[in-house]
């Protein structure tokens, strides 16, 4: 038997390696100056999905929304053990905020079929919103387990996880279907399999609206499916910029620099004074 697993992944600019030319003068991100990488916590979600597949068997699909070059994160997933990839790509999806993104993704997921477990990274390093996973769960009417830092037990009928919450952890058990958002504490992602890299390095996308697996009679993946708004039957007014109520007012490039240092005595009086000062400056409290 085994489980039907889906992992949603995203290609993001490598904001960990920001240099001087990263922001344009008008305050928008200069994407050309940043490498496009696999969103780190989505890699943790994929690893968790692969571990579940190894434990119980089943099938693991990967879905992403983005421009054509986002196919790279799907190939990376297949190199690590995913069984199929779907690229949701359409100019009409461009400029989507989290609401429009989750709308498009949930429509694609409905088209892909029934899943027992959907995993996504807790958040992407470009927007840091942590909203898309929970929104997908809401729109599909699924249980959701967010901030998963460890999968404690997984069986064919339920999953038990640890959630990292403020001031501690919470252990939660859920039946299927369920959506998990995974943090980087959960695991250390595996490397690509060299054999799969050699087999799938030339994999390309194909406009293939069928939800059936894109494999040949030997079980070898033949292509990555590319879907657009029409394939998933999306209402385009709810997609992309037109479906996005979020408006960016202003982007400010904040450079944090260390100023003066100040020595504080190790007695109660001096520490109380420091706490008072930090509270006054709204740094703590």
């Amino acid at each position, binding site marked *: 038997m085994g489980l039907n697993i889906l992992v949603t992944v995203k290609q993001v600019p490598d904001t960990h390696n920001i240099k001087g030319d990263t922001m344009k003068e008008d305050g928008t991100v200069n994407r050309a100056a940043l490498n496009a990488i696999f969103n780190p916590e989505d890699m943790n979600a994929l690893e968790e999905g692969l571990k579940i597949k190894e434990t119980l068997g089943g099938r693991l699909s990967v879905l992403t929304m983005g421009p054509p070059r986002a196919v790279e994160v799907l190939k990376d997933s297949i190199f690590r053990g995913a069984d199929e990839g779907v690229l949701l790509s359409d100019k009409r999806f461009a400029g989507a905020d989290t609401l429009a993104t989750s709308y498009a993704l949930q429509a694609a997921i409905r088209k892909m079929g029934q899943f027992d477990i959907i995993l996504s990274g807790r958040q992407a390093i470009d927007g840091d919103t942590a909203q898309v996973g929970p929104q997908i769960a809401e729109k599909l009417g699924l249980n959701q387990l967010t901030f998963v830092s460890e999968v404690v037990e997984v069986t064919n009928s339920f999953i038990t996880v640890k959630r990292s919450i403020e001031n501690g952890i919470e252990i939660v058990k859920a039946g299927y279907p369920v959506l998990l958002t995974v943090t980087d504490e959960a695991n250390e992602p595996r490397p*690509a399999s060299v*054999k799969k890299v050699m087999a799938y390095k030339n994999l390309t996308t194909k406009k293939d609206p069928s939800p059936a697996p894109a494999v040949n009679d030997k079980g070898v993946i033949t292509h990555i499916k590319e879907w657009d708004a029409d394939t998933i039957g999306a209402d385009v007014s709810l997609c992309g910029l037109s479906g996005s109520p979020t408006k960016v007012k202003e982007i400010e490039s904040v450079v944090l620099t260390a100023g003066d240092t100040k020595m504080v005595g190790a007695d109660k009086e001096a520490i109380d004074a420091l706490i008072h000062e930090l509270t006054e400056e709204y740094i703590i409290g």
Partner: protein
Amino acid sequence: MPNFYSDNSDILFHINNMDLSAVLDLKERHYSDKGQYPEAPQDYEDAMDNCKRLLDIIGDISGNFVAPRAPAVDAEGARFKDGEVIYAKGTAEAIDILNKAELMGFTIPRRYGGINMPKTLYAMAIEIVSRADASLMNIFGLQDISDTISKFSDEDQKQRYLPRFCSGEVMGSMALTEPDAGSDLQAVMLKATEDKDGVWHLNGVKRFITNGCAKISLVMARSENGMAGGRGISLFIYERDSDMKIRRIEHKLGIKGSPTCELQFKNAKAELLGKRKMGLVRYTMSLMNGARLAIAAQAVGIAEAAYREAYSYANDRIQFKKEIREFSAVYEMLTNMKIAIEGGRTLMYETSRIVDIKENMEEMVDEDPSLKDKYKEDIQKYSRYAGLFTPLLKYFTTEMGNKVCYDALQIHGGVGFTTEFNVERHYRDIRITNIYEGTSQLQVVGALGGVITGTVSERLDEYEANNNFAPIADIFDKAKGLRASLEKGIAHIKEKGDSTYQEYHAERLVKIAADTVISYLFCLDALKSDRKKKVAAIFIAPAQRRVQESLEAILSDNMDLIRLHKDIIDQGE
């Protein structure tokens, strides 16, 4: 995010410039797996692309996963508890990652689940892994075990064992050494007896067995009752059961993550590999030659790691108001270290290409005897080359690696002697490389034959005939000068016909050969790169002085040391 492949400009220089077309064409059997396996390459270009992607993955795993764990692996070491070996945590995690990346069937054909890579790529991969953690190489680099099964066992054995190695289900060890059979493997005593049902049983003790806790061991044993020497020895495949006990593991100076086991076999069932009596003379020799290439790669990797530590320290450390790299005493050391490593690397790839051509032609003739006439001459020639280059390489790289680690620690000064810095670990880890799989002294003996009988001259002739060195004539003339000294030394030793004198000067002669061959290889590299011209020039100048000194000693006919050494070492004033 350090990647130990893509951050190494010398490895990149070689992979981007070396011609592996002959090697890959043979290894891929003219690309006959094409279409049968989705991962099989279509042609040379595709195969080279696979090689580069593979190295990139190994570089990533080594830099980002293995290297950060290496200090803890060294501190924890492999342990022995209740008769079983426990790997250090980082070692166990690294094995898991290597398996997930499907790197444990490196040279094995695809039909058994391997990735069918040539030895040249394996050597590159071992160097990269060893730079991260030398002790992990003793597990990753033991794939010569499955390679030996792939070469010499019958089809049924291949089917039963090879897929398990490739999937990572089992690992291997080679159980050769015994308490009284170290360098002299002909003295092996462990007994193999065949019962009336044709089942073999092993009885005896093996010592210094790297990863002896592995599921599958290749065990060398005396199978011919009353037949002394190498001809009485066969090789057996042993799968662990309760009839073999691990008695202890060694406490060592370095490579602490690698368990070195003492094994006791008590009537343990095993299967014969290949033919009786061929255990030492054919299979183990082949196995050990593969292992020697792997140890050379390990030494280059450790040296690379030590060099980088020294380079970084010399840039950071300020004394007398400047970075210590500005002092000639320090930059001379750094320059010589870097050039020695590059010399080791170019000799390593030359050797591995020779081994690849030889072994694949041999395998192809085994698979299709009608090819025998076609490949006969080449197999003979490349066997001669492999017989010379393998010991020459191991000798040069492991001695060089020791010197590099010594100097790297020296550049650190006092802090290098503390465990705060990585360099002391490299200094300890490198020390075994010129001892195990045949000491440097034995490598000299191995290489000497090929030097004296003219194999080295044959190869140098080929370099001269097949390349146009005119663009670097000034440098190449100096390399030819080294060759003239080498030929003079060889002629003198042969003319003298005194075996004691030949043995006495063996190392000096082999050193001249190493300097000469590496100078030629640097000249070949210099045809492709301006930087390598500088490398060749700086290597050859001191090589000329070294060679001159060795040649003078050889030509002197001075026998004092041979005559007088007993008076010195046995007596005081």
